């Protein structure tokens, strides 16, 4: 008995269902993806001579990770790190302080419509603008230095924290909030005893996470003159001092790892 006859007797063998059911749509997507890939790859101009020349330099950079130089620019690195840390802490605190009221306003179940729309507008604006672009504008307006970075990071924190806080408030358990309401509480008491306990663990978790993000971002703000370790790193790259750059990168990675571990511990404790 050949396979065709067998198939007519026992039915078609099982085949994995396709990712997209409609064959026309599927093939149209495959073909357009392929066309796009060809177009995109062919439009990239690569100077292979420059790349092969650079590979040696890239290898030197990787090798310098084995013997990073923390000392010869130790003072610059220390000052840059302290400035980054300061910007991170200050902007996270101010960012949280501003985003809590905005987060309350952006939650549809506790805010009236006009307030809701204004707060959502602020959140959308803050999320749409890239940190670096905001930093460039702030440096142009406020001058070089950590103040520009501080304002940028605070502004970016608002978009992140308010949005997630508002979503958490919208998901909260209404029963608890209503129970507090039923005791005759005023509006601040209602927020304090009905809403806040429900969202506090998540707010603390998000704040820790944002501290972590702000530190990472503060490391690049220096590239556009907004203070922090980025300026030192930029100088190190410009002078091809790869051993110093490696030292800075190692410090950044280590700090982020410690922060991530700490925020993990804190989040596990509050939840």
């Amino acid at each position, binding site marked *: 008995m050949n396979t065709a006859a067998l198939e007519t007797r026992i039915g078609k063998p099982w085949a994995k269902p396709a990712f997209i059911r409609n064959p026309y749509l599927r093939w149209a997507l495959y073909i357009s993806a392929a066309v*796009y*890939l060809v177009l*995109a*790859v062919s*439009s*990239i*101009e*690569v*100077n292979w001579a*420059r*790349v092969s020349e*650079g*590979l040696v*330099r*890239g290898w030197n*950079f990787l090798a310098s990770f084995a013997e990073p130089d923390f000392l010869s620019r130790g003072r610059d690195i220390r000052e840059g790190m*302290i*400035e980054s840390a*300061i*910007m991170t*802490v*200050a902007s996270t*605190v101010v960012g949280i302080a501003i985003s809590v009221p905005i987060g309350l306003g952006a939650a549809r179940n506790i805010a009236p419509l006009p307030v809701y729309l204004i707060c959502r507008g602020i959140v959308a604006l803050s999320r*749409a*603008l*890239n940190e*670096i*672009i905001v930093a*460039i504008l702030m440096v*142009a*307006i*406020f*001058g070089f*230095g*950590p*103040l520009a970075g*501080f304002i940028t990071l605070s502004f970016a924190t608002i978009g992140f924290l308010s949005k997630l806080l508002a979503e958490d408030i919208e998901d909260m358990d209404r029963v608890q909030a209503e129970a507090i309401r039923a005791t005759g509480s005023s509006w601040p008491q209602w927020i304090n005893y009905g809403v806040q306990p429900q969202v506090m663990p998540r707010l603390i978790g998000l704040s820790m996470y944002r501290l972590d993000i702000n530190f*990472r*971002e503060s*490391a*690049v703000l220096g*590239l*556009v003159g907004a*203070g922090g370790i*980025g300026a030192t*790193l*930029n100088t190190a*790259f*410009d002078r*091809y001092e790869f051993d110093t*750059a490696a030292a800075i*990168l190692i410090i*950044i*990675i280590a700090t*982020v*790892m410690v922060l*991530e571990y700490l925020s993990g511990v804190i989040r596990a404790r509050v939840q």
Partner: protein
Amino acid sequence: MPVSSLADGRKSWQLRDRNAQLTRWFAYFAAVAIFMWCWKKISDSTTWFFVWDAPRIASDIGSRAFPPRWSYMDKLWEPLWDTLNIATLGTLLALVFAVPIAFLAARNTTPSAVFVRPIALLIIVSSRSINSLIWALLLVAVIGPGVLAGLIAIALRSIGFCAKLLYEAIEEIDHKQVEAVTATGAGPLQVMAYGILPQIMPAFAGVAVFRWDINIRESTVLGLVGAGGIGVQMQASLNTLAWPQVALILLVILLAVIVSEWVSAKVRGAII
């Protein structure tokens, strides 16, 4: 009237006992002290004259930037195409590396929890902790300015992000399905293809689109360090203080971000 105090003025109920309250106040005090110290440091290294002058400067820049120079748009199409390519190809390249790393890092699929897993986690954390702009700075120094440097920078930054979210998804899969496929006598690769992959496919697609959306935002600024895309034009316009062009570029970037967010929301809605 609240009933938290008795008729003679004593409190009948309070949220925390005395020690907890004192610890709390002390913690608040320490936090405020740290914040004030940070603020003083920032304030010391700020030229306050510029800050008091800021509203005038801001309105000055605003008046120079308006109206945007629409004719400059002709020169923006090509960088915009480059930006799209950096984000898309960078995401694809990152996914190629992120998938194996995610399988090596997930507790239930790693070949060795003692040796391989820590290495995979280290790769993830190093890639994640360094911003794509720093990767770009590094790559521009190594392989020269251009789209390629930006593409690789985006890819390097995205590997950690995608691998982290993917390995968390792999660790959360339902083990019964894997066991069922194993019980049919499937080999390890078949278990992977029929037991694990279908379960993480939605997460994978979600992560890919989510990262693509972020990468569009990030690739718009990579040009500031010379790594291709629309940022190159922005840097050039900023250097010549051509504010009408900067205004147009900012508008284009804003539009690109909104479109990419819309696309990613649509795709995620279709998949999940």
